[in-house]
């Protein structure tokens, strides 16, 4: 039980809560102090004070105070609730859940604590716990749909589809007296959610019946059309399915899957090119502006049929001057006939135009020729058909026709890059940028090429032309704020090439932290989505978040970091080995380099600070910009990564990145190879072996695989006696299965 207060103090206490909710922290503290003056050991007030202090960034003091409050008022649900909230804000979800559960034991009916507990439980994917908590909420307030839906979500994600459906049905039955409005989006989505569960159970006939009867007024028309087409197809009702897919194509003739499904349900065999083509032709005529209907036949047609259709397609695209023609077709190059035919057709197009127009080709009519030359330049620049001299020739031809074309100039830069001349490539891309300084796309590309040429400072200046001027800390801060992973990765790699380990690590860690933010971003939606009722979208998000870190964005930066840490470890080993003067010298040079880099980083930070101060001073006070209260939690105590680079345990630090690589991208061989290198250095031979086996399974002919197998054998030979007999046995028998045995 909370300690009772007098009316005056009780009112004050309510004010504290209100102040906290309105983020009026100073006022809240003042009121809390007033209560504490009279009742210095009032747990609830102490807790509220702790909550406010935490919001102000005084985390440690807040925890100490909240802990004291709990020990004073062990029986107060408020104290426990606050204690849980503090843990939750520190992302210590396990402790937070414990505290909420305590609070709930003292106040079993509190909807607030129930909701907070449920949110945390689903956040950590404790589906059973979540379902239990939601069930308690249903019992307390059975009239609220959200609670029922919550229970269903718990069952659904846990894999109990039958229970999930039953819960939704139970709620519907309780509703029978009133019919929901046609425009009730929550009801509409709840029905479609239930339909998706029925389908997931594999009962397609029932899903179709439910869709046609119960969902016929649902508001997401596209979903209904798509589900119906799919169900009909799966049930073998092919004629109806065909009509359903035709309706979908009419709605969106640029979604290739509809055509493919239509052809499937029409029982057209994959060898029947003519019949397939007839379908696409029908829609190419009906929807002249659909790209899919014209382009998709190029995938299955062969020989002269292919040539004829490709010619029509290319002519249309070149005449319109579509720049993405090559990008849209290059996937056909896995077929060597098509790889030959397409550039030949582009040449033919140019020749025929010349014959037709004679000498008078000029002005707008050169658009087609330029597009064809551009296509050929990209063709010869593409790795499957590369001839860079020819590529350059064609792109120069195109540039001659249209010297102001950003696209042409951009491709020229890309050719230089493939020639390995990064400096020239960066300069050419910057020229392309100057042709259209209002376009951020070309600006980003120019900056990227500068980074590839190790010009970090210049790249940041380039990017600064588009980042928001009012962000404190300049372009870099804006790019970090806006989660520009591409930049952080490229910048880190450039710093790494320049030997600036500190800044390289800093960038990779920043990428890592952004993924943490992205994972945390789902938190508010656990309650928000139930209010909004868009449950299918919510489920889609939960499933995506569960594999968030398999994104190539994470993989690339994390792999860079692991490799960098490996290099740091090896260097440290080499120098501590006391191998005579040579390594000492190397060490000295490296020290000097390090110091230089650190000094430079310091200077840059000072400059950035100065500039930010100047900008702040220049800010027009009349302009509507929110005066941001400086968030004390936001200060970075290692902006240039010097602390990161000073690590004594590079391999331990690498594990932070490596764990997720192996967990989320086990089928990417580069991660397994890097894992091996870390584990063999830390003496985790079984884990090294596991990585090696995984890499072998992915690509036994990879040159690294044999190299690592030999390395492992050699290392094992040296240390075998120090291992336990069981480990020895396992390793020996397993080593027999990897290459080189």
């Amino acid at each position, binding site marked *: 039980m909370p300690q009772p207060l007098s009316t005056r103090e009780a009112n004050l206490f309510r004010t504290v809560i209100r102040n906290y909710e309105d983020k009026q922290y100073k006022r809240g503290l003042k009121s809390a102090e007033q209560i504490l003056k009279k009742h210095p050991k009032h747990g609830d007030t102490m807790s509220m004070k702790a909550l406010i202090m935490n919001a102000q960034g005084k985390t440690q003091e807040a925890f100490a105070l909240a802990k004291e409050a709990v020990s004073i008022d062990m029986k107060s649900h408020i104290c426990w609730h606050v204690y849980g909230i503090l843990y939750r804000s520190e992302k210590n979800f396990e402790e937070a859940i414990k505290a909420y559960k305590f609070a709930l034991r003292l106040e079993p009916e509190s909807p607030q604590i129930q909701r907070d507990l449920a949110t945390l439980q689903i956040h950590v994917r404790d589906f059973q716990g979540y379902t239990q908590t939601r069930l308690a909420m249903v019992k307390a307030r059975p009239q609220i749909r959200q609670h029922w839906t919550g229970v269903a979500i718990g069952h659904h994600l846990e894999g109990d589809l039958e229970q999930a459906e039953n819960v939704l049905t139970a709620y519907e039955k309780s509703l029978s007296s009133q019919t929901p*409005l046609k*425009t009730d*989006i929550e009801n509409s989505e709840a029905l479609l959610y239930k339909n998706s569960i029925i389908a997931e159970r594999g009962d397609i006939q029932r899903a179709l019946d439910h869709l046609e009867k119960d969902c016929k007024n649902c*508001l*997401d*028309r*596209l979903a209904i*059309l798509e589900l119906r087409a799919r169900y009909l197809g799966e049930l073998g009702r092919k*004629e*109806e399915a065909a*009509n359903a897919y*035709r*309706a979908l194509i*009419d*709605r*969106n*003739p640029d*979604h*290739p*899957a509809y055509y493919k499904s239509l052809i499937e349900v029409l029982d057209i065999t994959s060898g029947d090119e003519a019949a397939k083509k007839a379908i696409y032709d029908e829609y190419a005529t009906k*929807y002249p*502006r659909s*790209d899919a209907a014209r382009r998709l036949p190029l995938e299955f047609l062969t020989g002269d049929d292919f040539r004829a259709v490709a010619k029509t397609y290319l002519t249309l695209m070149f005449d319109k001057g579509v*720049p*993405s023609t090559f*990008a*849209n*077709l290059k*996937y056909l190059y896995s077929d060597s006939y098509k790889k030959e035919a397409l550039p030949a057709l582009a040449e033919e197009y140019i020749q025929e135009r010349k014959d037709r127009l004679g000498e008078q080709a000029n002005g707008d009519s050169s658009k087609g020729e330029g597009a064809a030359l551009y296509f050929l330049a990209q063709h010869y620049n593409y790795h499957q058909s590369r001839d860079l001299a020819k590529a350059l020739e064609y792109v120069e031809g195109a540039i001659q026709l249209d010297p102001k074309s950003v696209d042409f100039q951009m491709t020229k830069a890309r050719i230089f890059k493939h020639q390995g001349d990064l400096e020239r490539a960066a300069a050419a891309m910057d020229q392309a940028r100057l042709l259209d300084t209002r*376009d*951020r*796309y*070309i600006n*980003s590309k120019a900056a990227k090429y500068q980074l590839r040429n190790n010009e970090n400072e210049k790249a940041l200046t380039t990017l600064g032309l588009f*980042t*928001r001027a009012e962000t404190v800390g300049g372009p870099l801060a804006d790019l970090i704020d*806006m*989660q*520009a*992973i*591409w930049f952080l990765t490229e910048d880190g790699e450039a710093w790494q090439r320049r030997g600036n380990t500190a800044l390289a690590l800093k960038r990779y860690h920043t990428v890592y932290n952004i993924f943490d933010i*992205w994972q945390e*971003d789902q938190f*508010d939606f656990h309650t928000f989505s139930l209010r*909004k*009722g*868009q449950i299918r*979208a919510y489920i*889609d*998000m939960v499933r*995506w978040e569960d594999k968030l870190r*398999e*994104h*190539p*964005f994470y*993989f690339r930066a994390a792999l860079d970091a692991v490799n960098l840490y490996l290099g740091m470890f090896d260097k440290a080993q080499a120098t501590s080995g006391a191998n005579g003067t040579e390594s000492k010298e190397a060490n000295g040079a490296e020290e000097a380099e390090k110091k230089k880099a650190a000094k430079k980083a310091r200077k840059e930070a000072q400059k950035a600070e100065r500039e930010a101060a100047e900008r702040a001073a220049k800010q027009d006070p009349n302009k509507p910009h*929110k005066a941001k209260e400086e968030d004390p939690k936001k200060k970075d105590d290692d902006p240039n990564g010097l602390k990161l680079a000073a690590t004594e345990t590079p391999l331990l630090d690498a594990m932070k990145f490596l764990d997720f690589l192996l967990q989320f*991208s086990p*089928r*990417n061989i580069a991660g397994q190879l890097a894992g091996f290198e870390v584990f063999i250095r830390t003496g985790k031979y079984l884990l090294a072996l596991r990585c090696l086996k995984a890499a072998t399974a992915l690509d036994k002919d990879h040159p690294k695989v044999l190299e690592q197998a030999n390395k492992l054998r050699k290392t094992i030979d040296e240390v075998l006696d120090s291992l336990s007999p069981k480990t020895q046995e396992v390793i020996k028998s397993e080593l027999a299965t990897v290459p080189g045995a």
Partner: protein
Amino acid sequence: MDIRVLRASDIPLIQHANLENLPENYFLKYYLYHALTWPQLSYVAVDVSRPKKTPYDQPKIVGYVLAKMEEEPTDGVQHGHITSLSVMRTHRRLGIAEKLMRQSQLAMVETFGAQYVSLHVRVSNEAAIHLYRTTLGFKTEKTEAKYYADGEDAFCMKLDLGFIREQIRDAEEGEKTAEGKDTEGIDEGEAVGDVGRDPAKKEEKKFKVRVGKALGVGELVERVETAASKAS
């Protein structure tokens, strides 16, 4: 190239496309907020033709439209709003932006009963203005001075969606007359590819719609909206 509705897993690359192309950028959470509040309204154009190098490669997003419903319309009329629209420079002149917009507009009417759709555009962005005005039929409502962070003005544009409601009604009536005889070939949105040339053609009927904040939105919305730049 594939035009389809947005999925949560697309979001990192949508954000990437936005960062590469436009000066108005948003946190990932702001995209999530759209995807989880009005999942029917946002569309992407995907380059499906790139061969995957690893099983984890994501399809490249070459264009997107991020759209929403106005939660508390000041004029009391239910309407949609285009938060952001972009097509990669390398994929222009294929009509992608128009196709994305038409899909979104249709869903705004069907799912949320939108009466019109609004957007902001830089007064200097001639290509976009051409698309909105000439191709899609938007009208300029007014100019908002210094709307963008860099001080540029914005045109506020609006498109009445009555013509889509009209089409839906026609399709439904066609369906009713066909009922009992033959329900095949229900053609829900036939004219999507080429509608919009003359939006003011028919007199529109009045519809009852629910307006305003029937479902609580809470702190989340305010926070992300102030966090994201106000530009759209």
